[in-house]
């Protein structure tokens, strides 16, 4: 068809990469960051086709992701302050009428490369590479079974995440948005014979779809208001007519928010994320902690120019973030499954990020995304190493003193390091990023969000408590452990661990709980250890920009530079520090915004906000750790006693039960939404089959029966043979033709 030449030319254009004259030539290779993961996805498909039974898919994926990371690193060096749009090929675009602004729709496969894009892709591809390496060992018991599928899905994920972050218009973002949803679905449901995994995968996809509807509608509205969904043109359109008071323009942020809350697991759509822990642990680390769930933060940061016109929407974002942080932290305090606790902590930390966005500090939010990506990936991956070594054991009551277990010292050390970072211990990276968010909350111009600063501090204390509840219980104290009852592969092949060769006596550990003599936990090898160490180094270095700023006040924070020189800072009037940054003057603005810390007038407890938050945050963190230290290391019996006491009184019982049962939110949704809908569906189904069908249609009665009598001989077996039936058909046609002719002739 006509497609062929057009296709060819677009493929050629891909290599040429039409660019603005002033842009660095390296930028034309930006597409590699997408193409390489796509390529490895296709190669994994081929591996699956050819039934490859080796670690080849992992090698391909790691190589491709590493290549993507290298591409992004190269881009990092050359990307300037002006965003560059790179057209790969035309996707959905056409015009009608006179092709004026509202007479056409364009959504091509474009890349929009600015500093925010590259910043985001940097940790996405970097962590992606390391976690793929980790998974190459972690998943090795599945070689020849799901191994190829796993790495294929990981490749798809990285490709889709690249589209999401690098896409040049909202439809590309939507493509990536749904694409990461697919990858998430496939990977949560990786152990597809396990009903819980399948249910969790389904739940994740459907809950996300609710948010996606918001995103889709926001997209329509954006076009309706501004006549374009391409970022570059959109910023111009907004600049031309910034403060639109039409309901359409005002509604856009609310709908975008819904999408963001779905993908980033915020109230009221957070319920899918804890269940998503059914997926293999590297997936939890990569998708459900470090990268995909931050897509909502990216969306709001990227579309910030649309948010600043609506202070109400920003306040809502802040409140949803703050409340989610609080709710998830309370649930996290009372769970016993290590991965679930980290999942709730992810929700809680994401809440901080949205709090930051809502109070106007896109920098604080993005910085927290950045620091969180490393330490949360570290925590999940160490949890995975533990799970890998202890036959699926994740119950923090059944693991203790792992620091002293041979082979687990490094893992334990790194996990404890991760705990310090998650707890935002003073002078860790997370301390700075959280500080930035809370200071902005206290100093925001919008009075309605000041309370959130205090809530944020409370959550900081709770976070420190539940983080070290895990840390002290699992990694310190006397050595004591029970293996889990699952083979690593979750599969009914049942020889997951035999691949390691050194411990063949697992055949019956389901019935041998507590008999440690028969269970030898195996420590991880290099492919797990190396990524762990590198990610830990990353977690430490994530604080580097802040250290430099601290030592030298004139030095702008590197992350801030990345965020400020992007759409995330455009129309910065909502920024708490009152700076007005645009693209052109943004480099000055960094310094200006830094300066602003010193001379804003908000006081918290008589101190300026920066000092107050730093001190209160440290205090909250240390208090949480100390409580945890007492209850979960020094006197573990006290924790149980406390729980018993609380359970003993009617007045306090609800606290324990509520937190342990996750405040019954899942059940609430089930009763209020799912079951009524199910009931309605059943009623409709019955109506459709009985009333409409049997009642009305068959009620017409005579005709079907007559038709039936007419045709019965033909197919009832009385008259066999094609000739007769076919002749009947021909006769029927002839009858019709004659009838038409008769009618026509009148």
């Amino acid at each position, binding site marked *: 068809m006509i497609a062929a030449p057009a296709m060819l030319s677009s493929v050629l254009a891909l290599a040429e990469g039409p660019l603005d004259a002033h842009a660095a030539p390296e930028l034309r290779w930006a597409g590699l960051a997408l193409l390489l993961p796509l390529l490895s996805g296709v190669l994994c498909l081929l591996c699956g086709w050819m039934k490859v039974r080796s670690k080849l898919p992992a090698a391909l994926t790691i190589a491709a992701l590493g290549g993507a990371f290298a591409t992004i690193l190269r881009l990092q060096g050359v990307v300037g302050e002006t965003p560059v749009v790179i057209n790969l090929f035309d996707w959905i675009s056409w015009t009608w009428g006179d092709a004026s602004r509202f007479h056409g729709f364009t959504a091509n496969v474009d890349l929009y490369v600015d500093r925010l894009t590259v910043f985001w892709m940097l940790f996405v591809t970097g962590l992606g590479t390391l976690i793929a390496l980790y998974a190459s060992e972690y998943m090795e018991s599945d070689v020849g079974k799901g191994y190829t599928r796993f790495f294929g899905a990981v490749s798809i994920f990285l490709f889709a995440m690249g589209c999401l972050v690098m896409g040049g218009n909202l439809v590309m973002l939507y493509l990536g948005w749904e694409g990461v949803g697919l990858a998430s679905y496939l990977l949560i449901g990786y152990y597809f014979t396990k009903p819980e995994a399948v249910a969790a*995968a389904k739940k994740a996809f459907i809950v996300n779809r609710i948010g996606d509807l918001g995103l889709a509608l926001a997209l329509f509205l954006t076009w309706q208001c501004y006549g374009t969904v391409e970022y570059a043109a959109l910023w111009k359109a907004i600049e031309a007519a910034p403060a639109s008071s039409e309901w359409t323009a005002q509604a856009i942020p609310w709908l975008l928010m819904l999408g963001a809350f779905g993908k980033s697991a915020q109230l009221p759509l957070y319920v899918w994320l804890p269940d998503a822990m059914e997926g293999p642990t590297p997936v939890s680390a990569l998708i459900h902690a470090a990268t995909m769930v931050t897509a909502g933060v990216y969306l709001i940061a990227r579309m910030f120019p649309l948010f600043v016109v609506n202070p109400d929407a920003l306040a809502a974002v802040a409140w949803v973030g703050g409340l989610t942080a609080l709710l998830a932290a309370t649930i996290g305090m009372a769970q016993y499954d290590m991965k679930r606790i980290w999942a709730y902590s992810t929700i809680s930390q994401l809440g901080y990020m949205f709090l930051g966005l809502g109070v106007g500090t896109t920098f604080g939010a993005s910085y927290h995304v950045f620091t969180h990506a490393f330490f949360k990936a570290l925590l999940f991956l160490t949890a995975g190493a533990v799970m890998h070594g202890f036959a699926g054991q994740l119950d923090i009551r059944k693991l203790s003193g792992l620091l002293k277990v041979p082979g687990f010292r490094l893992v334990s050390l790194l996990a404890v390091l991760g705990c310090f970072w998650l707890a935002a211990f003073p002078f860790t990276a997370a301390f700075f990023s959280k500080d930035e968010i809370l200071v902005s909350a206290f100093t925001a111009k919008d009075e309605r969000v000041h309370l959130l600063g205090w809530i944020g501090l409370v959550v900081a204390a709770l976070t420190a408590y539940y983080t070290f509840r895990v840390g002290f219980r699992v990694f310190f104290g006397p050595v004591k452990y029970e293996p889990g009852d699952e083979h690593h592969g979750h599969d009914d092949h049942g020889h997951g661990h035999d691949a390691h060769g050194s411990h063949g006596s697992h055949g019956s550990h389901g019935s041998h709980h507590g008999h440690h003599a028969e269970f030898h936990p195996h420590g991880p090898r290099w492919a797990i250890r190396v990524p762990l160490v590198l990610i830990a180094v990353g977690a430490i270095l994530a604080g580097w920009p802040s250290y430099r700023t601290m030592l030298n006040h004139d030095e702008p924070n590197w992350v801030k530079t990345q965020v400020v020189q992007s759409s995330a800072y455009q129309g910065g009037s909502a920024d708490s520090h009152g700076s007005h940054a645009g693209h052109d003057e943004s480099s000055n603005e960094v310094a200006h915004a830094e300066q602003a810390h010193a001379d804003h007038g908000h006081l918290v407890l008589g101190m300026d906000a920066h000092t107050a938050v730093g001190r209160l945050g440290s205090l909250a963190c240390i208090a949480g750790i100390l409580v945890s230290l007492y209850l979960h290391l020094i006197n573990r019996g006290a924790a149980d006693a406390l729980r018993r006491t609380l359970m003993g009184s009617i007045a306090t019982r609800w606290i324990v039960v509520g937190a342990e049962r996750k405040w019954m939110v899942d059940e609430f949704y089930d009763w209020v939404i799912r079951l009524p809908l199910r009931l309605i569906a059943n009623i409709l189904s019955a109506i459709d089959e009985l009333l409409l069908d049997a009642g009305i249609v068959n009620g017409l009665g005579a005709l079907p029966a007559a038709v039936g009598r007419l045709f019965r001989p033909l197919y009832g077996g009385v008259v066999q043979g094609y000739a007769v039936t076919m002749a009947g058909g021909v006769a029927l046609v002839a009858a019709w033709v004659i009838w038409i002719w008769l009618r*026509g002739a009148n």
Partner: protein
Amino acid sequence: MNLIWASILIPVATAAVIAVANARAARSLAAVGSLASLGALAAFAWQFPAWSTGAVFPEPCGCAWLDSINATLGVGFDSVSLMLALLEAFLIPICVIGSWTAISDRQREYYGWFMLLHASILVAFAARDVLLFYVGYEFTLVPLLFIIAIWGGPERRQAAHKLFLYTFLGSLFFLGSILFVGWQHHASTGLWSWDMGTLSSFASARLPANTQFWLFAALLAGFAVKVPLFPVHTWLPLAHNQAPTAGSVILAGTLLKLGTYGIFRLALPMAPEGGAALAVVASVLCTVAVVYAALICWVQTDAKKLVAYSSVSHLGICMLGLFALNPVGAQGSVLYMINHGLSTGALFLLIGMAYERYHVKDMDQIGGLAKRMPVWAFFMVFFTMSSIGLPGLNGFVGEYLCLFGTYIATGDASTGYPGLLGPGFALVAGTGLILGAMYMLLLVGRYVFGPLREPKDESHGKHAHDDHGAGHGDLTGREVGLLVPLALVCLFIGVYPKPMLQAIGPVVERTLAPYPAAVERTLKSQPQAAEAAKAEPKEDDRG
């Protein structure tokens, strides 16, 4: 012209050869015939000059058919009808080869009827003469009736009766309408003409608004059955459920598209005043269908029935895009027709393949088949994603544009195409995105994933010819060979829909040409809507 007739007559000739040939050769003959027909049509499409103009090629000839009323055998394509015909010609070989092991008795009849079905669908898409269109449209019923009634499931008779009753009654409305228009044309000009273009321009320009209203209502009533629109859809789930696999594929793939095509090709151009006046009513029905059918899907336990109901929901969105009466929605709608044929057809094919192995499609009895058939599971997930509109696959573009078109179809004229729908309709229909994911992932979660559940002993199955089946193994090379082209086309449309959109665009603009004015008139006759449109301040800003 000759290639068009070749693609139509090759299957007819094949049917004739099959009738006299050896029964064992029937299936091969049918495959060759259908591929030859596809080849002829593809050759025509290759040299088709009007891809980007929206014109009809070749010019309808005056070749007489019924001289006394000047009915002709005029055939010709514009890019929309050609795409639908290509879809049909593409699906038929897949249906035929897909039936090789499934159909073991009365093969000659089966393949013969299939070839005739193919020919009549092609006639309907190719026809430029409304009477010829009617013949093609109506004749499809005969082969389909036999295919369902002879090779169908246990309730095949009831299904066949219902199918016949419904669609025949629907066709009467349709026939009455076109005869009325032809008669009006004769009364007005003294000439008989059944050419689609002539009748459309005559009816839209000369018939009074009131007449157009009833004309559109009658045409809509006729085609709605075929689409099928709520509430006249109840024949479809039963027909699908009872039809043999290939019957379902072609039913979902192209037969339903005859209804949507009829509305697009005849109802909308002939009666713009009626279309504008009835768009809201029709859209309400579509929107109800989206939610209603999706909810019903969600509680089905029979895999095939679930997919059957999903057609009702999907076509609701498809029709909604058309009634948005702007190029965005209408383009999406046409694309959706093709996409739905591909993805739903493929899903029926896949369910049929599993059915051939187990003779069970009740998800209470069977499930977790990914364990047994990983390749099948891969395709199942692929086409499910296509069906629920994952961007990058075909379903997305059509669905998205339909909803987009619906959304922007407000009274506001800045797009050049004022509409009568708007965000409310898009929001309700948009829940189809969520509900669609709910029921399709339910299907995948139970049927494909989860613990393996197989019926204990299927030797008591209804089909006595198990030896022809493929056992319990994964897909055979033949089956994979059927699915791969479908998957590739889905992927291509999803990744690079531009050529198709460019081809559909001009036709859509032509079809919708009288609508902005008609919609304006309708808006004026509704005082509130007019006020609302006036109250929108941005109307001036945009100019």
